[in-house]
């Protein structure tokens, strides 16, 4: 069980309102990702759910019971922090045992759960080391181990991968996803990285300055962004947004076309431009096209390789069925 419901929740620090009234329901067993640029209030929102910050107004219900005033320890949630927040003077074993010790669990049960967690997370060989002797990925796993032994109703992750290097991040991303598949426990995951959001989430909540811009499955957000912000935030490389007469042709204030939905030709097409930088990744090629008269730069993604170098003239053809249209308020035109 781990359904979390936010009802008209707000948070202010002094005069500054960080979270305007906000409603959100996270269903039991869901992997929910809060994503948004820095300072959008996603970490604050997580801390409100955890109980580390008090809400200014509104209610939080966990499993249908009002938990607005419940202290963090009693909410049945476990949190993994960005800095891991391991206790440096305790061994890995004691770190993992700490929440159970605080709960007054029997030694045998503690040992059983530590062993189970250590096996699941590949930590068996490191149980007697101190956190200082572990690598970043191992520390991350200890932090996760410490949270799973409590068997919480929901896990809260606060940018857990941002201190890891790129290769490790991909690995840990998979491990956390697998953990979710295995435990089927509610997880709330905060990140500023839309790739993490897209790959892991059942449900993505896109936040900007405390407001929820859109809630939906990763593919919903990709195919039907509700506004220009979500359109630009989800997807990599970013969606091309074009304003002016070209947009007016499609009866919109702004049109958006993703780099992967533009065809490139050397001889003919709708738009003409000059290649700026071409990034050859092997599997894909990203071409940045200038001088189209539409926007500063149009990014195009081509599967595979293409002969294109700086200064070449190319023709671009957008796939019209994949085009997004937005009105003058930035909202999607259906």
């Amino acid at each position, binding site marked *: 069980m781990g359904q979390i419901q936010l009802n008209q929740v707000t948070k202010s620090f002094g005069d500054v309102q960080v979270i305007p009234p906000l409603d959100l329901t996270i269903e039991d067993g869901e992997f929910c990702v809060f994503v948004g640029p820095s300072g959008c209030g996603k970490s604050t929102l997580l801390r409100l759910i*955890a109980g*580390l910050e008090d809400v200014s107004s509104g209610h939080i219900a966990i499993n249908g019971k009002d938990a607005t005033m419940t*202290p*963090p*320890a009693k909410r049945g*949630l*476990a*949190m993994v*922090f*960005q*800095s891991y*927040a*391991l*206790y*440096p*003077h*305790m061994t890995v074993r004691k770190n993992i045992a*700490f*929440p159970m010790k*605080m*709960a007054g669990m029997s030694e045998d049960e503690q040992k059983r759960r530590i062993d189970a967690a250590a096996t699941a997370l590949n930590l068996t060989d490191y149980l007697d080391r*101190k956190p200082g002797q572990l690598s970043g990925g191992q520390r991350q796993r200890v932090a996760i181990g*410490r949270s799973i032994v*409590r068997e919480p109703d929901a896990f809260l992750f606060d940018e857990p991968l941002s201190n890891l290097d790129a290769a490790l991040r991909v690995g840990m991303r998979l491990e956390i996803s697998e953990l979710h598949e295995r435990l089927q426990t509610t997880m709330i995951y905060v990140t500023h990285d839309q790739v993490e959001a897209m790959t892991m989430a059942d449900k993505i909540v896109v936040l900007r300055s405390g407001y929820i811009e859109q809630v939906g499955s990763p593919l919903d957000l990709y195919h039907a962004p509700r506004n220009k912000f979500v359109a630009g935030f989800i997807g990599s490389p970013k969606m091309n947004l074009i304003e002016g007469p070209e947009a007016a042709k499609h009866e919109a204030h702004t049109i958006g076309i993703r780099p992967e939905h533009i065809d490139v030709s050397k001889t003919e097409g709708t738009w003409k431009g000059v290649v700026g930088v071409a990034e050859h990744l092997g599997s894909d090629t990203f071409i940045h096209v200038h001088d189209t008269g539409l926007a500063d730069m149009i990014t195009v993604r081509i599967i595979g390789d293409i002969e294109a170098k700086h200064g070449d003239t190319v023709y671009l053809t957008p796939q019209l069925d994949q085009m997004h249209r937005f009105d003058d308020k930035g909202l999607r035109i259906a």
Partner: protein
Amino acid sequence: MATQHSRSAARLMMAPAVFLLLVWMLVPLSLTLIFSFKKFLPLRGDQIESGWDWVTFFPSLDWVGFANYGRFVSSSAFWPAVSTTLILVGGVLIVTVVFGILLAILLNQPMWGQGFVRILVIAPFFVMPTVSALVWKNMFMDPNNGLFSHLWRFFGAEPISFLSEAAMPSIILIVSWQWLPFATLILLTAIQSLDGEQLEAAEMDGAPVLKRFWYIILPHLGRAITIVILIQTIFLLAIFAEIFVTTGGAFGTRTLSYLIFQRVLESQNVGLGSAGGVYAIILANIVAIFLMRIVGKNLDA
């Protein structure tokens, strides 16, 4: 730019300082050692007449071997002085560390006028030991007009003569007052370096306030506490002024350093006092080694 030339120039320029430091330390130490093996009673008539030849290391003074050492230890005042010293050091350490931790936690809370309060807390450290001891003696602990006496009378109790009836606790109080700022300051900086997420993690893990203190804050402070104990011990073993201006070594407050002072200046027995000085050096080293052993583990981690 470490050329041959600049290196020798550096040596030349450092030489006076090195020389001065050596003389500063080695001369008193060797004189203490020499005196401790001699019979040296500077006010005795025969010794005054024969005069002391400083240049040739006092040929007129008789070598007495370890007689001074034997006499210093066999004196009835020796063991009480050692235990008084240890009680004083131990008492002050306990008071300063315990209250230092509490004050550090208090000062770490965000509050109005934090900067000013911090300066106030540090203030006692700037007062000279002699002055602060006199202030305590006359302002607080005076049996007739001291503030403590008024406090006692306010609650209907009969004021006591603190410095004679409770001499050791009074002196521990005075010295603790002086050293509390030092402990507080070091512990405060240590507490400020504690990662807030660790406390939040402990809170999520179900640890209430006192357990967070015991399992997270206290271990984090371990190293700072070690440093406070080490540094304070070194200075507290040599406490003198506070005893001199308050009890004059009476009422069971005669520490080792005060005993040495009495042997040299009140009994005018330089040899005996020097032997005591050598014992004090040995005691300080024993304590230091023990502390290093106990807390060394802490510093490694």
